[in-house]
């Protein structure tokens, strides 16, 4: 019996439907690994993409955290084509067009790290799982940064480090999903060494007071390596508890140690307190071994320097960036930030702003938000026009290499912001090192 069916058969619909579905799915199927259709917090068809800014909003670093947050908000504005464009006007090479990222508007959520590793991880996890962030960023403590970086690798979400200066961040604790634009303790030592030699000579005896956590340890090691390389003796190196407040019991042994230089491997409130108290103990007026006693603060922050008042005058250290730099990138950022908020940005604000732009630009370059492709776009990326001269994001350890500033507390500030005088812009070549010296493994691209 011939049965002639006219019109649309059920089989035909199924066949056609299958063919159509296969055809539509083909680009994503064949290019799945390139465009990462299936990855955590894929923005998909959403008109926006969300970043997480996890900074200290409470605790001793709250002011620095607030400045970081200002910079992040400014970066979001510029990425979305609002404001004066900031560093989008100077960054080279630039893929961003000032209309968002890959056609999506950038949005953000914020969190409070409280400068505590567990609180920072909890906040970051909330951002990733609840807010669906595609990238998160923040800073002000290396311990906190390393904790967040590990989480980033576990969760498959890129973490762009803010202010973290420990060698471990891009050394033994480096992660494929973590990137650092800020300089590190090794670079501080390498930049500071020649200046210390020129200012203080080769025959010195140094006493270290060191914050007892990852950043302090690596900074002490790097500065010791540098000063001992100059021929200096190390009289002693003493660990001090984080947030000790009163450092008198650690400063008094310095008086009789025979040391003629005190190196304060302290940051933030610890630096303010230990420096203030060291000056009160008369160390800066002292003569030891026939030389003027000197104090060195290897990592400076203008925000923190305010807290130490007059005590910072003439004291040497290093900093990642300073608002007084005259290159086009620095000036563009200072102009945008200054006009927006009425005061100059801190080095923490600068690194956070740059990190946000670099991530966004990498997505644009990769043509996807798929993390392994974004990571590959960042690895080995060389850029200019962001302050600090030509900069390389080294692929081997995700550490940026750029010029480092040696500064000293300004003896005669021209304004309330003019606290640090740039003594020398140390070229990138002088602070470079072999990535293998600090060990560590980046880990896989696929989280």
């Amino acid at each position, binding site marked *: 019996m011939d049965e002639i069916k006219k019109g649309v058969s059920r089989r035909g619909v199924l066949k056609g439907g299958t063919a159509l579905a296969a055809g539509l799915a083909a680009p994503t199927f064949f290019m799945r690994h390139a465009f990462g259709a299936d990855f955590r917090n894929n923005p998909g068809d959403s008109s926006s993409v969300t970043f997480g800014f996890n900074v200290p909003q409470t605790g001793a670093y709250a002011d620095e955290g607030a400045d970081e947050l200002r910079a992040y908000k400014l970066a979001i504005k510029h990425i979305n084509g609002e404001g004066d464009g900031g560093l989008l006007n100077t960054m080279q090479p630039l893929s961003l067009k000032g209309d968002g990222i890959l056609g999506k508007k950038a949005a953000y959520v914020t969190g409070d790290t409280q400068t505590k590793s567990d609180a920072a991880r909890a906040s970051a996890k909330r951002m990733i799982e609840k807010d669906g962030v595609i990238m998160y960023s923040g800073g002000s403590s290396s311990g906190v940064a390393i904790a967040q970086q590990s989480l980033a690798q576990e969760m498959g979400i890129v973490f762009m480090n803010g202010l973290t200066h420990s060698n471990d961040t891009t050394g033994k604790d480096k992660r494929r999903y973590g990137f650092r634009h800020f300089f590190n303790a090794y670079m501080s030592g390498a930049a500071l060494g020649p200046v210390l030699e020129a200012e203080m000579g080769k025959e010195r005896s140094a006493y270290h007071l060191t914050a007892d956590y990852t950043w302090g340890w690596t900074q002490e090691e790097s500065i010791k390596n540098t000063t001992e390389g100059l021929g200096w003796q190390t009289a002693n190196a003493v660990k001090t508890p984080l947030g000790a407040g009163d450092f008198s*019991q650690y400063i008094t*042994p310095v008086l009789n140690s025979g040391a003629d230089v005190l190196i304060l491997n302290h940051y933030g409130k610890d630096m303010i307190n230990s420096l203030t108290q060291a000056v009160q103990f*008369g160390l800066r007026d002292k003569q030891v071994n026939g030389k003027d006693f000197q104090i060195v603060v290897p990592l400076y922050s203008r925000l923190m320097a305010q807290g*130490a008042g007059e005590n910072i005058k003439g004291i040497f250290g290093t900093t990642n960036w300073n608002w007084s730099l005259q290159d086009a990138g620095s000036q563009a950022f200072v102009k945008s930030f200054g006009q927006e908020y009425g005061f100059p940005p801190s080095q923490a604000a600068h690194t956070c702003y740059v990190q946000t732009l670099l991530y966004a630009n990498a997505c644009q370059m990769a043509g996807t938000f798929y993390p392994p492709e974004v990571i590959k776009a960042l690895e080995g990326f060389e850029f200019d026009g962001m302050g600090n001269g030509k900069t390389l994001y080294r692929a081997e350890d995700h550490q940026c290499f750029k010029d480092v500033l040696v500064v000293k507390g300004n003896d005669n500030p021209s304004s309330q912001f003019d606290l640090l005088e740039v003594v020398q812009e140390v070229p990138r070549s002088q602070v470079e090192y072999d990535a293998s010296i600090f060990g560590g493994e980046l880990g896989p691209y696929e989280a």
Partner: protein
Amino acid sequence: MTVFAGSVKTDRLWGLILSDVLTGSLGVFAADLTNAFFGWSVMDTLALQLLNGLDKGGAYALIALGLTLIFGTLGVVNFAHGALFMLGAFCAVSVQKLLTISVKVKDESITFFEAYKEVPYLETWFGETGTVIIDYSVPISILLAIPVMLVIGLAMERGLIQRFYKRTHAEQILVTFGLAIVIQELVKANFGANPIPTPAPEIVAGSASIGDWLGLGSAVVYPWWRLIYLAFAAVVILGVFSFLQFTTFGMVVRAGMQDRETVGLLGIDIQRRFSVVFGLAAVVAGLAGVMYTPILPPDYHMGMDFLVLSFVVVVVGGMGSLGGAVAAGFLLGILQSFASMNEVKSILPGIDQIIIYLVAVVILLVRPRGLLGRKGVMEN
């Protein structure tokens, strides 16, 4: 003994001892003799660490004294007491800001934001005298801190804490801790989170050559302001004790601390006196804060840093015991300083960070009521 090894230093030392004996200078002889046995640097270090401990202990004792006064009289565990210390410090900051209200000279080379150099009006109007007044802002701020802290203390007690007298200690802790956080955040909103430099007057900004005074050598120096703080703490502690011991008001308060009901039955409004004691405790904490600002540039969180240690001091001293609080404050301060000596840390690494809690555990095991604790206080 290695000190007799015949080094030039040791020979010189024995020469000094001989000369001390010959000249009859017993004090210097004792110092030189101890140096001979323990070595120069150990004696220097011990003397300096003792001073550090007394200094630190002075701060602990002042805060703990106020805490104990409040607990002993009102029975309230006041977790906002650290905030009172911090408010005192910010009285000094406020006075400094007031005295340095300035004319702003704009830096014309900066165009992206307002940058200026500040010239205080006091200096413009009064020249050198103005500079001196600004220089003395911390001592001047004591004059402001006394009435301000008294008012804050009374307002805190009358406005909030009195409503919790009949509540459990847990509820009192929760409400006072909450109050401390509110105060902290208010200060942070007004002054920022960064520490604010509040230097001592120039004349006492440096160090005193205590080594020369004690016959320990000119290398041994100690900051003038810390010595002043130590003397100040002693005066305040003695003042509070004298007030309680030698005035009628103090006698009634002490009687109230022993047996509140009986004092009430005698027709004395003990509650009103206890409120004044709360104000007094606030003043003591505030003054401790004012005087501590040159040592520790104040920030909104400084009270909380001291509070935990001060509670340990109160418990070790014995709940409700004023003498115990003072003794424990100095004892723990001194132990903390000695535990930080490199010689001690080389034997017991990290001991400086746990010594206070370790001693607290031992004392509470041996004397569960603390050093001078009274039976029946916080035991029901």
